[in-house]
């Protein structure tokens, strides 16, 4: 350690540059103006660290011949497969499926960290007599458990978001006992490995249990809360990567992993706060169920329907219309027609604004992304706090596939979304709600807004209903 050769010293500087770009990447990503540059900067730093490692590995080993990494074919083959998979996945995914994609990439990272921990343990365990040094064993155990939980947890999250696994909370019988037993078993194995015997089979068992734990911890959480879970697992992967960095004495990994571990933890907090929830509540309360749980059919009779022509007239002759987009607009990919509707109304002299709830859709910023994609000018998108007082002066609030974020029960105590700030849609003169059917939303909570006197329902897939509204406004 004390006699570093020149290549090794240079490697430290490359790590330092890489670390600085990662810090700046996160910093820039936290501000709209610089976010894209930040991401590119992070990618550049990453490329530098990866290429440097590839081309100088041998040089940086004391006393070895210049040349490339010995098993370079593993890296080339693995890198090629991974790159193709990564790029295809990232390019092909529709905007609505972004959270799933992030979950999968995160799971891959967690899996890689777990495999690295495993491989390091395999390499050194049982070689000498005596036990391996404690810090080394702790770090490999940490990388193994956290990386594994991140892997399977992310896969379950992906499944729930993609609709492959049931989105509602799935509780095992005796859930808490199983979880408790799992963690006790892992703790016992970890202590045994660290203090008594660096046993490879036990390490494998340990990792296997951690993989199970990832599933057991994630299944009871409802699909609507998955973005928060993905963010938390992202933080976990960061910690697992930091542990690998510690094991490998690689400061680029150590710093990058710690950065993500810490910032991911804060981000998770911020996300739960935007939903007015606590992390404990998200992880253990079994909220965020599918619409098929509670009695979503209540008040069905009292829903008043409207046809597209009448709705169009109402808007075209109003002074101000506020459009409230929600998850349904994302599902239906209705943002294009919505923009057309806006243009038409504006050309008729109507003041059209969009009210963006911070957690509308399935990821924060979801609505902003979709509407920007459809070229809705940025200055028509209003944050909740800016626009909430304006509903009272509004002729028509057009709710396109939003439900929870406009549900007035949030203002009362005792409901699962109590205390969540909502858009004051019910203060508008008229409310027009676009949804497919009479069921409750993703969280399964009935919405009294729909049965108000001033509310009219326009049923159907949002894309088609908005298109018929466009027709209606044209002829109005």
């Amino acid at each position, binding site marked *: *350690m004390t006699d570093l050769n020149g290549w090794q010293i240079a490697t430290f500087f490359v790590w330092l540059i890489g670390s600085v770009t990662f810090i700046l990447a*996160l910093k820039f*990503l*936290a*501000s709209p103006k610089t976010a894209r540059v*930040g*991401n590119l900067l*992070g*990618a550049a730093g*990453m490329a530098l660290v*990866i290429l440097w490692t590839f081309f100088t590995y041998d040089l940086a080993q004391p006393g070895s011949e210049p040349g490339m*990494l*010995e*098993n370079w074919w593993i*890296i080339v083959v693995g*890198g090629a*497969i*991974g790159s193709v*998979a*990564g790029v295809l*996945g*990232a390019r092909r995914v529709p*905007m609505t499926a972004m959270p799933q994609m*992030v979950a*999968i*990439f995160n799971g*891959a*990272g967690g*899996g890689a960290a777990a*495999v*690295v921990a495993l491989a*390091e343990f*395999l390499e*050194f365990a049982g070689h000498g007599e005596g036990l*391996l040094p404690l810090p080394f064993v702790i770090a490999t155990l940490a990388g193994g458990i956290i990386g594994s939980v991140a892997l399977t947890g992310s896969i379950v999250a992906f499944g729930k978001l993609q609709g492959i696994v049931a989105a509602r909370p799935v509780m095992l019988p005796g859930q808490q006992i199983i979880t408790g037993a799992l963690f006790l078993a892992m703790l016992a194995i970890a202590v045994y490995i660290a203090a008594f015997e660096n046993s490879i089979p036990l390490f494998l068992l340990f990792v296997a249990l951690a993989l199970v734990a990832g599933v057991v911890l994630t299944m009871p959480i409802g699909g609507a809360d998955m973005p928060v879970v*993905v*963010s938390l697992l992202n933080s976990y*992967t960061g910690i697992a*990567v930091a542990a690998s960095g510690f094991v*490998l004495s*690689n*400061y*680029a*990994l150590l710093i*990058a*992993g710690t*950065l993500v571990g*810490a*910032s*991911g933890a804060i*981000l998770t907090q911020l996300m739960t706060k*935007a939903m007015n929830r606590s992390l404990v509540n998200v992880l253990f309360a079994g909220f965020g169920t599918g619409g098929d749980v509670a009695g979503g059919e209540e008040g069905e009779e009292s829903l008043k329907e409207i046809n597209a022509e009448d709705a169009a007239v109402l808007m075209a002759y109003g002074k101000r219309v506020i459009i409230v987009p929600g998850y349904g607009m994302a599902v239906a990919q209705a943002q294009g027609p919505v923009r057309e509707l806006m243009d038409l109304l*504006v050309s008729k002299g109507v003041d059209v604004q969009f009210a963006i709830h911070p957690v509308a859709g399935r990821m*924060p*910023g979801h609505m*902003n*992304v*979709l509407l920007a994609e459809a*070229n809705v000018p940025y200055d*028509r998108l209003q944050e909740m706090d800016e626009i909430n007082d304006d509903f009272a002066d509004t002729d028509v609030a057009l709710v396109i596939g939003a439900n929870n974020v406009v549900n007035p029960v949030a203002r009362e105590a005792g409901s699962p979304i109590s205390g969540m700030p909502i858009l004051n849609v019910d203060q508008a003169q008229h409310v027009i709600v676009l949804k497919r059917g009479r069921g409750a939303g993703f969280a399964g909570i009935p919405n009294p807004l729909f049965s108000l006197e001033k509310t009219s329902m326009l049923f159907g897939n949002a894309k088609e209903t908005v298109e018929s509204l466009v027709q209606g406004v044209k002829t109005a």
Partner: protein
Amino acid sequence: MDPTTLSPFALLAALFITVLAAFIGYEVVSKVPTMLHTPLMSGANAVHGVIVVGAMLVAATSDGPLRIALALLAVILGTINVVGGFVVTDRMLEMFKKRPGERG
């Protein structure tokens, strides 16, 4: 590097670096606007893709089919994380770029 040669000093230095990096991670994102939560999460996700470097180091010293298979797996997974992560983040952020001067 052979972990059995890790000096106490190296461990302590790593500890300092970890604590400082954690502070930075906290400070740097603590003011992020809601709108950017998802891109930031996605970008951070790409950053921990640096684990691919760890996978490369494992690959470099691998012998025997088991360890080679593990190394290959780690490299594939790490590459998916890093490549997919940056690309998907860029795609998300592309949506934000057209803001100024564009009115309907």
